[in-house]
């Protein structure tokens, strides 16, 4: 699905932000050791947080953030028309991340709780991932993205390769690090079903996996069921955790619930 960037010389890159914390674009600026070289290889033509110049002509569109307004959808369709490649950055853009938490609440209540009687000034819609609105060529995952992952993907695109996307679960990376299992520490962990690529950072730091990278390919549901039973955890507990980052797909297609809680 991913095509090499067509522009032969210096691809023009635009970075767009929807509802997000801007942490993923900050991760690009945090590539301190590579940034000067990177600017030789690509030309940033739209990056509001870092530059004044703007352009509507670009080869690669990087999109950070969730869709939370109808105007965001128009913006995305415009970007899709202009860009040869659309790559999303981070969990807000896919699978929906923290902005998707509001989907668990009545939208009117959400507005009035925050803005009171003035909620009408600030219309909002269900938070959606970018690929719910336009086709996306590639997702760079994580909350935030890892800067090495960003450089890896960009390098692959520049030389016309398909960037590698892990198909296995965080659990695999966690085992390789010989961590004590979060379930054995009494926690609920989404590592068994979440796509790898983060190096199991959170469980390695004494925490657990919150599923920020979305489901892995073919999550091993049978094994998850056995694990839950063994550890005395319920499907409801998993779903509550799953909703933290996956509050869009979790509410559709039966998603994980159909798989885990069947």
């Amino acid at each position: 699905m991913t095509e090499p960037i067509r522009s032969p010389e210096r691809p023009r890159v635009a970075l767009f932000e929807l509802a997000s914390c801007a942490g993923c674009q900050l991760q690009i600026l945090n590539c301190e050791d590579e940034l000067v070289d990177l600017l030789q290889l690509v030309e940033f033509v739209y990056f509001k947080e870092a530059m004044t110049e703007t352009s509507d002509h670009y080869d690669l569109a990087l999109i950070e953030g969730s869709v939370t307004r109808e105007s965001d959808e128009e913006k995305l369709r415009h970007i899709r028309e202009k860009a040869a490649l659309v790559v999303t950055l981070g969990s807000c853009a896919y699978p929906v991340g923290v902005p998707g938490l509001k989907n668990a609440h009545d939208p009117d209540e959400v507005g009035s709780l925050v803005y009171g009687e003035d909620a009408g000034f600030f219309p909002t819609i269900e938070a959606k991932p970018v690929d719910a609105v336009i086709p996306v060529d590639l997702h760079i995952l994580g909350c935030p993205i890892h800067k090495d992952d960003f450089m890896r993907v960009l390098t692959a695109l520049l030389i016309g390769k398909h960037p590698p996307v892990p198909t296995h679960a965080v659990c695999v990376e966690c085992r390789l690090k010989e961590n004590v299992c979060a379930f054995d520490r009494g926690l609920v962990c989404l590592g068994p079903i979440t796509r790898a690529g983060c190096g199991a950072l959170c469980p390695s730091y004494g925490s657990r996996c919150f599923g920020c990278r979305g489901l892995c390919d073919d999550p091993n549901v049978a094994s998850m069921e056995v694990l839950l039973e063994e550890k005395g955890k319920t499907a409801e507990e998993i779903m509550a955790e799953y909703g933290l980052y996956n509050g869009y797909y979790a509410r559709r297609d039966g998603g994980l619930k159909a798989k885990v809680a069947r």
Partner: protein
Amino acid sequence: MTGNGGSNGGAGGARTVEVNVDYVSRVEGHGNIVVVAENDLPTEVRFEVTEPPRFFEAMLRGRPYDQAPLITSRICGICSNGHVLASITAMEATLGITPTRQTKLLRRLLMHGETIQSHVLHAYFLVAPDFFDVGSVVPLAGTHPEVVKRALRLKKLGNDLCEVVGGRAVHQVAAVVGGFTHLPTPEALTAVRTRLVEAGGDLQETVTLFASLDMPAFSRPTEYLSLTYGEAGGDEAGGGEAYAFFGDHILSSEGGTIPVSDYRDKVRERVVAHSSAKHCAPGDGTATDTFMVGALARLNNGFDRLSDGAKAAAADLGFQPTCTNTFMNTVAQLIETVHCVEDSVMIIDRLLDEGLKAEPPEVEIRAGRGAGAVEVPRGTLYHEYAVDDAGLIVEANLIIPTGQNLANLEQDMWALAPQVLPQGKEKAQKAMEMLVRAYDPCISCSTHVIYLDGEGNESAGDDAGHSHRADHQGTGASGPEEVTA
């Protein structure tokens, strides 16, 4: 050019000028400047925030207490650690937890790392291009490679300090309610200490560079707020007289302190129609009676507590408290950067000297309510929570520094406009943009926004801001529409 709109009109009589900047660049998030003037006197001034509203206070409801730092840090990638620490502080107040001395020291180190990276990013990447008359740092990489490389080295140092303590620079994973789930190794602390010491040369060159830039002349006295400790020795980790990045009281430049738990008496939010970020005013809530938070406020309120190197940097940069020139906020940030580097070395020495010991976080869940605050790069950040006896969040209130500064920014814009409008539209526009940038606004952060009470019927800003009318330079001009009054 980001400017659009604007017209020179007014046949014969008044000359009307509009200075509009749609989507100010080199700030975090989406904000627009609107200034309308007649005969060089402003008649309309607005800083519009059009960032998508994000409803964090609503989203927190029903989530477990320990996810509050994780969720609220996603308000802002730049000050994510600040949100983590404000959230932890408030949640510990809610649950009656007192952090250990080691935890306090590690938290201060984590905060310093973030302050260093944020201040350096702002001064070099967002502000400096204005003085070199370029649109971004990108052309500077060609014309002034040493400057850009130095900026990147310092920024990386701040980020790496965060990574040593928290596991990664953006959205750290080690600091939690009750303490830390992972401790840095002595080797990692020693290595980063060496780099902190070696950064002295880069810091000195930074001071020299910014001392050579002419900050625009401007003065508008306002109230400055920052954190402090209520009693000497309150900050056991810092010896009681630490420069106030943490604290349990709010200190006003106009005298007096109040406990952080009473923050609603001092910092009131109100909704204005042109901004998805709420505005804030001090207790009496008139629009002209605004206040400022951030590096300039902290320096004005706590200059004596700076490290020696930071005081020397202040002398080189020509900074003296009380400074009422908002543009000097960037200079204040650089002085703080020096302080953070020096204080970090001191903290690491203490940690290594005393030896790091495992202190597994202990939390006993109970129903409660509590508020906490920390000084993040852009100013005082307040979090307040109420949790039920299952540890689920039932209410949350978050007050972000940029939101607190917006009303003050608009008052500065009123004051700056007559000063720069006679220089022509283009210069006026640039001056206005530079003023906005001086605040280092974090607009995504500010559009979270307020929770009201359980019924959603009492805005914390309800009795604030009956008047948003500003009376400037005798024009009797009207400020932005106030919608809550």
